């Protein structure tokens, strides 16, 4: 009797214990996200937090100063020293490899270009996905932010495809898909860039009201301006002209700044999209100013190449206003001086990504290609005249195109690697760089290598030829 009762009590208590335990254990270990962080789901539930996610992209783009990062500094510096416009004096061996066009796949800067580019693509994808499945964000903000995210994705893809050639196209946040993505051909990448930008055009705002009048977030015109470049790079002259014209004709927002020293100032009328320097510990300076202007008595990190110096025409105001010189060890070094401000809390300069002068040159080239010589010359001479140079009149299309390339070399020097990109797309890299960089130069150097570790981590990635 006693033992039977014991047995029942034992059984009941065991069952009770087991039930309590099994039910409660599972629920017990499911915890809420930490209050110091926001889970991805909650980011896209309000206008404010969703806007913060987009602001986070721009902030990160500009938070690293002191060592170049994409996009703050590294496109300008690395493509600059790869081409014939800048000479590298930095002691960093990774930079030397760029300067010597002898990049080894383990190069850290190559890894940075790749990782940072794809990081912002991930951020953009996360914003697009988050907003598409969100209910809490107002339609206007949602449209604007999706537009900005698409723009940023296109912007990153544009540079990545130019650095590396065929690249994987990353359009989701699923790491299990992304970590084994294949490279696809550059034309498909460009198609997706064009798709992103044309979609962005439709939804982005037509002014700068979203950024309180400051030109620090991309709007419709930024998408048009980048699209003009993308079409130009793909030989779609008509569309390139059309997009450039749309920006140039928007005279209420955009006009060339007569004073060359004011072109890169914050919210200058020439600027279409600028990035706001955020790094407080570097006094909000741009990486370009930080890198090119040597601190007191130090050797410059880089200086203008003699071929670029010689390419300036006599009395070119750009040589006077955008080039500085310093003496180190009894030798004179000429430095890019488009950005002039370091070491002060109240920087007057923003980091200009897209500006109107490029649009004039894009349209000039697009028109020239379409044999519209007169209009092309007009565009070209607007830029020349601002620099205090006389107008040029070309005898034929070929000569005109030559003039335009020369003008791009001068107007856009030490700015976003334009020289390197132009040499590559016009097929003139071998002819121009081989004599300067011989015997190291190889045709395959126009593409940077896929980072060594990426090939190790993703079995589907192949290396570029020559590496």
């Amino acid at each position, binding site marked *: 009797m006693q033992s039977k009762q014991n047995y029942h*009590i*034992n059984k009941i*208590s065991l069952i009770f*214990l087991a039930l309590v*335990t*099994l039910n*409660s*254990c*599972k629920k*017990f*270990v*499911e*915890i809420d*996200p*930490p*209050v*110091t*962080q*926001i889970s*991805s789901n909650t*980011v896209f539930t309000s206008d404010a937090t969703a*806007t*913060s*996610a987009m*602001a*986070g*992209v721009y*902030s*990160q783009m*500009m*938070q690293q100063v002191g060592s170049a990062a994409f996009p703050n500094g590294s496109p300008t510096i690395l493509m600059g020293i790869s081409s014939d416009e800048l000479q590298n004096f930095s002691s960093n061996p990774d930079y030397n490899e760029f300067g010597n066009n002898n990049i080894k796949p383990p190069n850290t800067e190559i*890894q940075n270009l*790749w*990782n940072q580019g*794809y*990081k912002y*693509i*991930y*951020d953009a*994808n*996360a914003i697009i996905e988050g907003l598409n499945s969100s209910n809490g964000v107002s339609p206007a903000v949602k449209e604007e932010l999706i537009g900005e995210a698409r723009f940023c994705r296109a912007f990153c893809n544009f540079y990545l495809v130019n650095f590396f050639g065929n690249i994987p196209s*990353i359009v989701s*946040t699923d*790491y299990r898909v*992304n*970590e*084994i*993505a294949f490279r696809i051909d550059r034309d498909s990448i460009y198609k997706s860039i064009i798709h992103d930008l044309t979609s962005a055009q439709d939804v982005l705002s037509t002014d700068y009201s979203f950024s*309180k009048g400051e030109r*620090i977030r991309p709007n419709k015109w930024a998408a048009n301006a980048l699209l003009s470049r993308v079409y130009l790079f793909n030989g779609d002259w008509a569309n390139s002209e059309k997009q450039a014209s749309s920006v140039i004709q928007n005279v209420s927002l955009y006009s060339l700044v007569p004073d060359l020293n004011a072109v890169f100032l914050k919210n200058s009328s020439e600027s279409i999209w600028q990035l*706001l320097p*955020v*790094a*407080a510990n570097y006094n909000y300076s741009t990486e370009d100013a930080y890198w090119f202007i040597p601190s007191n008595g130090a050797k410059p990190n880089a200086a203008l190449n003699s071929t670029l110096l010689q390419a300036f025409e006599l009395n070119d105001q750009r040589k006077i206003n955008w080039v500085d010189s310093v003496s180190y060890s009894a030798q004179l070094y000429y430095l890019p001086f488009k950005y002039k401000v370091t070491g002060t809390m109240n920087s007057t300069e923003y980091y200009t990504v897209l500006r109107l002068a490029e649009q004039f040159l894009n349209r000039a080239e697009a028109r020239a290609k379409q044999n519209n010589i007169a209009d092309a010359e007009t565009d070209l001479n607007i830029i020349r005249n601002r620099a205090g140079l006389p107008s040029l009149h070309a005898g034929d299309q070929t000569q005109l195109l030559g003039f335009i390339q020369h003008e791009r070399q001068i107007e856009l020097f030490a700015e976003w690697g334009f020289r390197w990109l132009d040499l590559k797309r016009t097929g003139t890299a071998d002819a121009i760089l081989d004599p300067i960089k011989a015997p190291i130069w190889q045709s395959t150097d126009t593409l940077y290598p896929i*980072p060594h*570790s990426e090939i*190790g*981590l*993703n079995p589907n*990635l192949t290396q570029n030829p020559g590496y």
Partner: protein
Amino acid sequence: MELNVFRLMRITAFLLLAGFLEVSAHGHAQERITLSEKNVPLIKIFDDIQKQTSYNLWYDKKQFQNGETISIDVKNATLTEVLELCSNRLSLQYTLDGTIVTIRAKLILDQPAPTMDVKGRVINEKEEPVAGVGVTVRNSRQGAVTDMEGAFTLEHLDSNAILVFSGANVEGHEERLNGRRQLVVVLKSKINKLDEIQIIGYGTTTQRLSTGSISKVSADVIEKQPVSNPLAALEGRVAGLFIQQQNGIPGGVVNVQIRGQNSIANGNSPLYIVDGVPFNSTPLQQVTQANFKLSPFNSINPFDIESVEILKDADATSIYGSRGANGVILITTKKGKSGKTRLEGNIYTGFGQVSRMMDLLHTSEYLQMRHEAFTNDNYVATVVSDPDILKWDTTRYTDLQKVIIGGTAKITDAQLSLSGGVVNTNFLIGASYHRETTVLPGNFADNRVGFHLNLNHSSQDHKFSISLMNSFSVDGNNLSKTDPTQTIILFAPDSPPLYDSLGKLNWAQGSWSNPLAFTNIKYNTQTDNLISSANLKYEFLPGFNFKLDGGYTQQGIYEVIKFQSTAFSPTSTLKPFSQFGNNHIKTWNIEPYLDYDKRFGKGKLNALVGTSFQESDVNGSAINASNYTSDALLDNIAAAGSLSVIRTTAIQYRYSAVFGRVNFNWQDKYIINLSGRRDGSSRFGPGKQFASFWSIGSAWIFSKETFFKSLSILSFGKFRVSYGTTGNDQISDYGYLSSYSPTIYPYQGISGLYPTRLFNPDYSWEVNKKFDAGVELGFYKDRLTFNLNYYISRSSNQLIAQSISGLTGFSSIQANLPALIENTGIELELNTINIKNKNFAWKSSFNLTIPRNKLISFPGLASSNYATVYVVGKPLSILELFKFTGVDPSTGLYFFEDQKTGKGTFNPTYPDDLIAVDLSKKYYGGFHNSLQYKNWQLEFLIQFVKQPLYYSPPNAPGFLSNQPLNITRRWQSAGQITDIQRFTATFEDAYTAYGNYRSSNYAVVDGSYFRLKNISFSYVFSPVFVNRLHLAGLKLFIEGQNLFVITKYPGLDPENNSLSLPTLKVSTAGLNIIF
């Protein structure tokens, strides 16, 4: 008067007062009696009394004829004394009328015999409960066994029943009830370590019956060491446990590793449980400017600890499931003791000094070095670069080691405790104070005040018991932000005076950074620590106990670092600033479980099943406060001109489990122990939160076999084997969660958010499979015990931040890597009682550990972040270094092997020329001796470690920095053969070569050492003397820690192997009083 009464028989009949009384009537009250009888019937005593006195004793012979015998030894006693004595011990009554004495057996009216229920408690001479003691009733089949509290119950006993106590680890004893219904029996312990109680997860065992690998360090060992951190008291004491004090700073971190490194990237620290409550072992500090870590264990008063159990193998640790992979350390605090209320005071005071300094160059040798370097390099000294030659007074000599770290730390420790209680209830209240200053100049000190409370109660029937523990401490640690040792040790010996003529710090016009500047950067911390726990037990059916362990701990730190303006050179533009930090960890746990004990035949079964819930919440922040106008305001956060948040932390960690264990013991000969646990942790993502762990352990006590009993010298022999799995979840929280964190900087006033982690529910526990085999032997009645252990543990499913393609937007992801790490080792423990006689005892114990560690596999090593860190087939503790070939006789430069050509070069290629250099410990252990002569006791522990160490001196000889004496044998001229390269003062080849030397195997030195870890010498005053002072005990002692070290290590202290403040050698004296 000496009395000796033995009761050897009990009266079995109860007689009525009747019948014939034999009378004799003569005598006188003042007469004296002398008796010396052994085991005689009472009647014989009565006869003797009659013979020696004029008393007439009247008694009924029948009553005493078959009665008890008695031993009696009295001299010149009165009749009353003798009769009292007899009546106290035997059942008789007497009346005295003039000279007539009437004696009769005690009258008991009830018939049949009266019975009663008896509850008792068995304790040893240390007043600790003794479990497992058999209590039988003489001439009856009735019996009981004492439980963990030493309690037993017997029902329906004769009021004069005699209880016989017998147990494996106590000396036998008999006790007559004499009508008592409650009794406390003190049994003498047999000196046998095998039967000491060992605490394990959710229960206890003994070394004799344990199936697992467990070591125990008791209070008597811990109390004899003048340390403030209880972990430091374990150093060198336990096989398989390696402890390293990181520095000599009060409260500094102590590294603990049980049986090697199991995890590549994640925590290798054991699980700590204090009185059943998990204890956080990670430093709490939040501010970024503090240059050293403080140990949370500094909040635990070593004197409060009763025992520390170190659980090493799967059998002992798998009941802790996912947290047992790195072993478990159980800390049990002292409990109250029943009996007389007792007030104990223990106080010691002493001093500490740096245990080891370096021999450095004197000014003349130093100047010679500098000038030789200048000549070598054709270098012309400049005032800016070489103030030591051109600006400072080169006739000066300052031994900065002596000035900065050569001071004396004063240590004071006081403990007061009150304990006592009755049979079923006891208490302990303790208060403690510890103060320790530093060897550094400046007013730095660590003060700890602690309280400890313990209450135990059990119901009359012992079915219900409760134990409560509460301890609270406040540790105020006032330090400097920096351990200055590294920066000062190699200052030039002709450095300027530390103070100027006004008594302020001398900055020598900015030509040096005054080494005393650190004294003006104060780092004050206050650490509060609360540990509360409760253990309840209710025996709801015989053998079935419901138990509930619960606890709450709260650790909190408040920190402030104050950079006073006087810490900066006058030329500096830095303004005074502060950093404030705070961090709190609150943990609670509740663990209900059922425990079942059953004996059947010759077998014993113990089974338990239970569940565990635990939650930890961490909340902390750190703030940088700058732009202060005055040093005086640095403590006030509101006075700062600007504030910025360095970090905020908010973490919730939850944990739950179901566990069970079955232990089956057949005749104390064959024992099998199975345990299992299913664990869930919030650190893992959905679907991966739960995992199961299990173990099986078995023991065969072969000395119990009949065929072994003939081997007389072998008193104990056991084989023990266990195998099982444990886990490790020491990764950061929320790792699976896709989340956004704030960016460092806002963008146009909008605070940015960026994705911090990929959504990743895929990773799970690190799994550690442990095999352990041991043989335990006892010789000469266990005077010599020997314990040899072999273990293999293989740790896989390594949780690492695995590199991932940048295409994912991230460079790494938390993942389980199928890398396999193997730790094997041999552990030896030997305890001997070398000499034991009335006046002199000598005991020794020796432990030795020979650990091996090996990376068995690491898929994808080459493309991982660990490519130049680990090599498959080698230990984890390797360094990839250049291979030193000597000093090139022609150039005087350090040369290293170029792997391609096999020739030497001063500048080998990274990473092609690297070789893997093993830095693992070869063996370590300790040798402890305890000598006792009458009231004198001497104990000492010698700790030894055989290990290579990577040692990197900070600057190339010839530059502005002092050097050890051995550099005088440097290369000076072509053809010279030596092992120190030429002096240099420029950044040319010799500097490059020196840099490569630091990355070469030449920088790996012999870091082995012998250390007199602890010595204690005490005198216990005799009870006679102590009683005269109206005390219960008095002891005087002197103790020393780290008094000397023998080593070839060229740096400061091989124990912490860095240029941090060496561990201190501490000497103290004190006394212990018991009222």
